[in-house]
């Protein structure tokens, strides 16, 4: 069964084309990741799906309901954990949860029991009656997720669930999300600009770049499309073309050039190929500042499908 279906969504803000024909589908029970740098259109896609933003064109369905024709039904079906929380800082965790449940039409003992259950589930029961302002970043994020789950939604949207968390809290959140997905039998759509996060959490993912989906598949499939390991050769004097020629002769496949001085090439087995590559560069007189070998990562996948460096793109360069 299809939980989320998106066909050719378009949305522009002024002259900025935020979504330029986005299409994908998510099956029930799946954890689906939208991966891309800041400003790629991930959040806009989510905002259309949770009925906050009207698309200019295209169709989207969540839980079988059309987001434009039947937004009310979509809102009852989904939980939304926005990027910027939206928690009422002057309320306690419990008060925030109770109100969220009430506007979802819950009440009385059933609501109180559900709130208690969620406070336990996300691990903030001890702080339930403290004002949210006093929460740590990680606690706040747990509350955000609990808020999205109060009314037992079938589909949960997590927009950048771990942005702003320290690495330890991030890893804790990952296991939390996996556990919740199973415990509440949820379909989850999450956006992230952390490659490790997509790799860790998503059953399937789509890479978003400049309002378009450039690749889609399981993390393993996407990495599999890149044959071999990546060798990054940083040059001393930027003799890029010379280096590419030498690398090609040494049996490596040059792919991209980063910052005008680092040549990326692909080889079947990095550790085995490295000595001959270095020897070839040295005998050709190409000055090498540093060399590194890496197994295919989503970083490489991003580079491969967009021709752009993920980190630089994310920083808006």
């Amino acid at each position, binding site marked *: 069964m299809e939980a989320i279906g998106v066909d050719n969504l378009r949305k522009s803000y002024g002259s900025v084309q935020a979504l330029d024909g986005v299409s994908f589908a998510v099956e029930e029970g799946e954890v689906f990741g939208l991966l891309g740098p800041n400003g790629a259109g991930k959040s806009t896609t989510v905002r259309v799906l*949770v009925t906050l933003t009207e698309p200019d064109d295209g169709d989207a369905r969540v839980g079988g309901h059309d987001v434009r024709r039947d937004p009310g039904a979509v809102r009852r079906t989904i939980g939304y954990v926005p990027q910027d929380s939206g928690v009422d800082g002057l309320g306690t965790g419990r008060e925030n949860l109770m109100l969220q449940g009430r506007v979802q039409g819950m009440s009385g003992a059933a609501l109180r029991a559900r709130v208690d259950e969620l406070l336990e589930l996300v691990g903030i029961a001890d702080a339930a009656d403290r004002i949210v302002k006093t929460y740590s970043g990680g606690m706040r994020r747990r509350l955000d997720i609990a808020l999205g789950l109060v009314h037992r939604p079938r589909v949960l949207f997590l927009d950048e669930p771990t942005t702003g968390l320290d690495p330890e809290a991030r890893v804790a959140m990952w296991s939390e999300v996996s556990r919740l997905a199973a415990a509440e039998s949820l379909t989850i759509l999450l956006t992230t600009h952390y490659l490790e996060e997509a790799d860790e959490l998503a059953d399937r993912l789509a890479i978003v770049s400049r309002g378009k989906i450039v690749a889609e598949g399981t993390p393993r499939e996407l990495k599999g499309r890149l044959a071999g390991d990546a060798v990054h050769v940083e040059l001393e004097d930027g003799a890029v073309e010379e280096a590419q020629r030498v690398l090609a002769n040494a049996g490596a496949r040059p792919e991209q050039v980063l910052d005008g001085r680092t040549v990326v090439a692909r080889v079947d087995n990095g550790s085995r190929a490295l000595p001959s590559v270095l020897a070839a560069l040295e005998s050709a007189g190409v000055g090498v500042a540093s060399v590194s070998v890496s197994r295919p990562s989503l970083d490489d996948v991003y580079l491969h499908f967009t021709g752009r460096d993920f980190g630089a793109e994310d920083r808006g360069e």
Partner: protein
Amino acid sequence: MNVARDTWFMVLRQARNLRREPIWIVMMIIQPMIWLLLYGQLFKNVTRLGGFGTGSYVTFLAPAIVVMNAFFGATWSGMSMIYDLDHKVIERFLATPASRLALVLSQIVRSALTAAIQAVIILLVSLALGVRIHTGVLGWLVIVVAAILVNSVFAGISQAIALLTRREATMIAVANFIGLPLLFLSTTMIAKAQMPGWMQTAARFNPVDWGVRASREVVLPGTSWGSVGWHLLLLLGLSAVTAAWAAQTFAVYKRSL
């Protein structure tokens, strides 16, 4: 009904938040007292000019201070909307079935309820200062209703400005810009007979003055219930208009998302 139910939930939320900032409660109570005591003393002898309908300036002033306070409070009510917009509280509720209208109306209702509570406190202090309300309990009720309506009129405008500009600095500028002029273009502090002709004319179109007129009628002897009813009706009509404007600007805000 969803609108009424959700408005109530949101009002409770805002009231609770207000309670958690005790400094606001103290300000809300102290400030009108200062107006009442300061102006009451400063202009004590002004009644000798005539046309005040009473020799006691504080009796003349008290019902108007209730309305003035309701008016000032309303001009700031949009700040709470800006806080909720900035902290994305509104967006979180927009992704739920919560009534959209309730998100705006609750701000106006909360503001008006605050004005009603302040009105009672000011009237109690006035009582201690020797002010007697000629029409008794009914008069108290009229004054509180006038405070609620004047507050609603301007809270609607304040919400609309908050939703259109979404900036605190703009809100402060607007509140300061309309606050004192509308106060002085009314009979709040001075009898109509003592105002220049053009100001008397301007005051007739000033909703603050409508509230002052209705409130003062019930305090002083010779109450004209027709005038009370008419001015309250004008305020009721205008508050419906400004609430509709606020709701319309909320739709504009949603489209910008």
